[in-house]
């Protein structure tokens, strides 16, 4: 697998007057699980989408493994990067198996390899192999997003990008899928960037949390370091939210002696 260090250098994006990204610089070493956290409009999704050129920055450069991603045609870059969408975005006219096989087919893998890969991926995301022939519309929300993750990983990418992947799921499914994705990250040695507005999810899954506000990075570090060192009241508030919520929950449920 190629070296997958991600280097973001002075990336800027504007929509008219609105600044979506203000000279963001960030280096993500290979193998790290990074959570981009922030309120709506903080620029976290915009930043994620610049990484596979779904959005083109106005200024700055992004290098993956030392190579500028703006060099070749965008589809070639995207085939090497797994992407999990917020709205899942499974192709409704294709079966589950065909959805997973989409990128390997674009890469002209031999059919036998594709079939084996689809079966392996269904097992990897804990879905029965028989599901390959079902239509996406027959699946539950959690099953659909598992297929979304399998599709993103199909062509054996080194990098996995996820845009609020668990946002629409019920809490139990969300918890289970989050844990599974983290396990996959470790097992496959991925470099993962996940956008979320849920600090608890970020703390539970990520090695490193990057907090954005108004298109700029306002905090960056491992969860435990951030918890110790951050002074910015807004970020502090955000970081403390899960703990406060846990305490309130414990109090109301009568635990925590």
């Amino acid at each position, binding site marked *: 697998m190629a070296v997958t260090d991600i280097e973001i250098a002075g990336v800027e994006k504007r929509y008219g007057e609105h600044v979506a990204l203000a000279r963001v610089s960030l280096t993500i070493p290979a193998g790290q699980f990074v959570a981009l956290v922030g309120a709506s409009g903080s620029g976290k999704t915009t930043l994620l989408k610049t990484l596979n050129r779904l959005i083109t920055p106005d200024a700055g450069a992004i290098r993956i493994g030392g190579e500028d991603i703006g060099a070749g045609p965008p589809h070639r*870059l995207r085939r090497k990067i797994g992407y999990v969408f917020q709205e899942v*975005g499974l192709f409704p006219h294709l079966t589950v198996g065909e959805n997973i096989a989409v990128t390997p087919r*674009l890469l002209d893998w031999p059919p036998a390899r594709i079939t084996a890969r689809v079966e392996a991926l269904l097992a990897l995301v804990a879905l029965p192999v028989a599901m390959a022939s079902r239509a996406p519309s027959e699946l539950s929300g959690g099953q659909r997003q598992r297929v979304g993750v399998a599709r993103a990983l199909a*062509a054996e990418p080194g990098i996995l990008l996820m845009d609020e992947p668990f946002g629409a799921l019920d809490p139990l499914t969300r918890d289970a899928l989050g844990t599974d994705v983290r396990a996959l990250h470790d097992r496959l040695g991925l470099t993962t960037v996940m956008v979320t507005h849920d600090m608890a999810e970020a703390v539970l899954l990520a090695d490193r949390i990057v907090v954005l506000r108004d298109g700029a990075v306002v905090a960056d570090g491992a969860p435990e370091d951030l918890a110790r060192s951050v002074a910015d009241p807004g970020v502090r508030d955000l970081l403390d939210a899960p703990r406060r919520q846990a305490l309130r929950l414990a109090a109301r449920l009568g635990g925590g002696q």
Partner: protein
Amino acid sequence: MSEAFALLPDYLAWHVLLSASALTLGIAISLPLAVAASRHPRLRWPLLAGAGLIQTIPSLALLALFFPLLLLLSRLTESLTGHGFSALGFLPSLLALTLYAVLPVLRTATTGLMGVDPAVREAADGVGMTPRQKLWRVELPLALPVIMAGVRTAAVWTIGAATLSTPVGQTSLGNYIFAGLQTENWIFVLFGCAASATLAICADQLLGLMEAGAARRDRRRVIAGGAGLLIGVAIALLPLVSFGKPAGYTVGAKNFSEQYILAELVAGRLERGGAHVVRKEDLGSAVAYRALAAGEIDVYVDYSGTVWTSILGRTDNPGREAVVDALTKELRARDGVVVLGSLGFENAYAFAMRRERAAELGVTSLADLARLAPRLKLGSDIEFLSRPEWKGVDAAYGFSFKREIRYQPTFMYRALASGDVDVISAFSSDGRIAADDLVVLTDPKGALPPYDAVVLVSGKRAGDRKLMAALEPLIGKVSVEAMRAANYSVDRDGDKATPAEAARALEAALN
């Protein structure tokens, strides 16, 4: 009825070939346009409005407009490359029907493509599809059910409108309708309508099967519908393959009974000589001559006065023989067209009235008619009042009728009989003049030119001895009485003969 069935394989084959080609071409044109329209909002309005505008042109006019346009193009390519192409028949019909098929497909395909979920579009980009792959693998399959609805509409329109290709010289199921209308053969008209409607329903149902298959992502239905269509088209086209004998003669005819009979007379003689003959009937008056001059038809019968005024633009009247002699020289020099000779009868424009009405008003000549014109209504055929002959006779006598009403020839006689009009522009060889007891008004000023029926042969057949030998025996042999009898056998209300039967009876009477 059995005669209608005998003609069906040929008519149906051409009708299917024409509508299937037009539909295929229409889809091929409108899909790229729909892709462009769905991506660029600035293109959307002009494209959809343009296609909508074409749809508002009456189909018959659209078909008619392509003939002069193609003729011009054909002359241009001929002067550039030395090879022209046929401006008559298949090509103008195909182009007009293709334009007709574009709108419904363009409209629904644009809607369908714009209706694809943006999240699915983004996913297509995200998994690494190129814009082309996104279109073919995601957008078009998802828009397919909506597009198919437009294809169904286009198919039904095209099959219906294809019946109108008969007047520009393309054989279709419209031949039943146009010929039936002229000869008052209502069985033919109904047969043509029923055949065309059945075809449209079959195509619609098979396309509907494909549409349902596309909507339910059921490949078997899509394949079944598609296979049904392909097999249907293939079977319908079989007669063209077996009839596709080496090039023969093309005999033209204008759009009235006498022309059908004379075309059958000519075709019959050529066929008995072993030649393969194609008939192009229901041609407009000017279309027929131009098609002959361009070599698209080989032979047809026209009338000396018509060519004299319409083609040569003459307004003088030097007399019957002088006109035919002058035509022989001038057409040869102008277009290489051979005037083989006069058949022996005249089919002149003649003003006719019911005998008792003429007696009551005391009208015997055009001069009398002109005096009473302000109180009288004139019925004419569709083209007479636009023709130079009318301008000539009007200039000579100074008519100002109370009303002038245009009819299909068949209905013109009806209108005279029922008293809706007082006088009509009849044809002197028409059997109905004798049968309906009409009087033909005299022309004391000689304003109407002579109308000898003359056999015209295209320049490219000028050296064809076999053709000349087959047709020369007809010259001077057809009397006006024989022609009237033949015409009447086709036009009368009961016990109608077909033009082919009338032609056989006419030929038998010659010998």
